[in-house]
């Protein structure tokens, strides 16, 4: 991807708040504009991402910033909504259609649950099953094939909870250090996954301002330019055993293929990454993505976890902001929270959770188990 940069980022802390979408989105958006050194007058177009809110919510929320007549488009791709919206903005800037684009994600997952009696559509067979159940199937299979233990999952969860405690925008900010024992003792949701190994329900907003890379230097000459050097989105290719009903948990080839594409585009390999964000809605996913993204060889994830390779100051830190597990996962803004974190890390502005001399970061999201979106950001 040529000459596209993240000009600014902003967030409204994820959590169980009572602020409406418009307020959360406005605060995240204005924070991103101030961070970029821009006014809403400078924005040429906007992509909004929300999963749960009703028709036209995106356009209405954008009115909070002023009515300037710019094109506004809603993008929805389940958990990957924010990442997919970010990708559209990057493609438009790269193609020369716009100089500055706002990408705004927001959601109130708590409202969605309250509106539905059981959080599901009773006429759909697959909706009878709790999502954690599907992801637990992946964990059981891993135990069978690779000898993974529940403690490996608990160690990932403890890492993400402890990273989240260092992130002021994280939903879960434990005041005491999280241990493997505490994670293991939390309530069982779908064996072997416990509540602390699963992402929480929550609300929130996040925003990224994407624009021409030369503008980044002009607007903020004092800080490093964070470029978007690769972007890809893929849906699945059919393989025998594909599960059509319910989320497709696993879909390993899609993450492998998408990551290969972005590595090629960026001219880097997994060994060059300084930090990585993944779709860790349930910890088993993070473990699988270590291997699928090439951060370690197939079958080595457990040994790497035991060594602490993916801890905040390990070989390649993963989920540095707490991940979906601790930072939270409202839906629309989740992928943009990854961009927020990676941008701050690459600028050296990540405070207590700063990864030393971070230069290249990868952001990975899955949507409904059926699409994969990956971006690579690089400090100039």
């Amino acid at each position, binding site marked *: 991807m040529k000459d596209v940069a993240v000009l600014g980022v902003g967030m409204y802390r994820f959590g169980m708040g009572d602020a409406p979408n418009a307020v959360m989105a406005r605060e995240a958006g204005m924070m991103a504009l101030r961070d970029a050194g821009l006014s809403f007058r400078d924005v040429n177009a906007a992509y909004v991402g929300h999963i749960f809110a009703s028709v036209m919510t995106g356009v209405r929320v954008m009115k909070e910033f002023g009515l300037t007549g710019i094109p506004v488009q809603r993008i929805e791709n389940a958990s990957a909504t924010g990442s997919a919206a970010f990708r559209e903005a990057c493609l438009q800037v790269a193609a020369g259609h716009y100089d500055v684009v706002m990408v705004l994600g927001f959601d109130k997952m708590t409202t969605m649950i309250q509106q539905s009696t059981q*959080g599901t559509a009773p006429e759909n067979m697959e909706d*009878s099953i709790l999502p954690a159940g599907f992801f637990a199937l992946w964990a059981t299979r891993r135990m069978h094939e690779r000898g993974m233990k529940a403690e490996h999952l608990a160690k990932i969860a403890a890492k993400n909870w402890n990273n989240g405690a260092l992130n002021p925008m994280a939903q879960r900010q434990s005041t005491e250090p999280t241990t493997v024992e505490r994670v293991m003792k939390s309530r069982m949701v779908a064996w072997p996954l416990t509540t602390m190994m699963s992402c929480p329900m929550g609300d929130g907003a996040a925003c990224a301002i994407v624009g021409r890379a030369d503008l980044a230097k002009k607007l903020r000459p004092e800080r490093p330019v964070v470029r978007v050097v690769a972007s890809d989105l893929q849906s699945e290719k059919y393989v025998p055993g594909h*599960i059509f*009903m319910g989320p497709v948990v696993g879909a390993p080839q899609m993450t492998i293929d998408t990551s290969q594409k972005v590595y090629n585009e960026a001219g880097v390999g997994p060994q060059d990454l300084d930090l990585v964000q993944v779709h860790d809605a349930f910890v088993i996913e993070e473990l699988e993505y270590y291997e699928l993204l090439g951060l370690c060889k197939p079958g080595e994830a457990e040994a790497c976890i035991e060594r602490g390779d993916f801890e905040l100051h390990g070989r390649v830190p993963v989920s540095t902001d707490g991940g979906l597990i601790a930072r939270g996962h409202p839906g629309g803004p989740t992928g943009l929270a990854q961009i927020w974190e990676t941008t701050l890390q690459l600028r050296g502005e990540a405070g207590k959770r700063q990864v030393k001399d971070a230069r290249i970061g990868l952001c990975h999201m899955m949507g409904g188990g059926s699409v994969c979106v990956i971006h690579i950001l690089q400090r100039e």
Partner: protein
Amino acid sequence: MTSATRPRVPIKPGYFTVPDDPSQPPKLLATKCNACGEHYFPRRAICARAACLSEDVTDVEIGPRGTLYSYTFVHMPLFGSSNLEHMDGYGVGQVDFPEGPRVQLPLAGKKDDFHIGQTLEAELDKMREDGNSDVVIVRFRPVESSK
């Protein structure tokens, strides 16, 4: 079978059979591609293989037996069910059918009843009542002899 006297209706039509004889297991409603032989569940109109994409497909029934690929036990009530058995939780499994499809649906039993590689058989499970009818979902129960 106490439910034998009440008509059984599927939670969603088009996914599984409801045999008139309650002692008979249900079968899954699947599709076979006549061009390449691939089988799909649930039914579809176009073969999904990139190299095929044929519209020449036939409705078939598969099952009732398959092999357990993976499983879990969810410690929450089954959504949409008022069956007391589902209040303490339910098993979920991925089941491989000899014809090819892998499906994920509820399992009958507790966590320790399940192990990867065992044979399971489909059965109908009452979710709730609707007037004079029982609303049923299909689930899989381990076949005793396969343990």
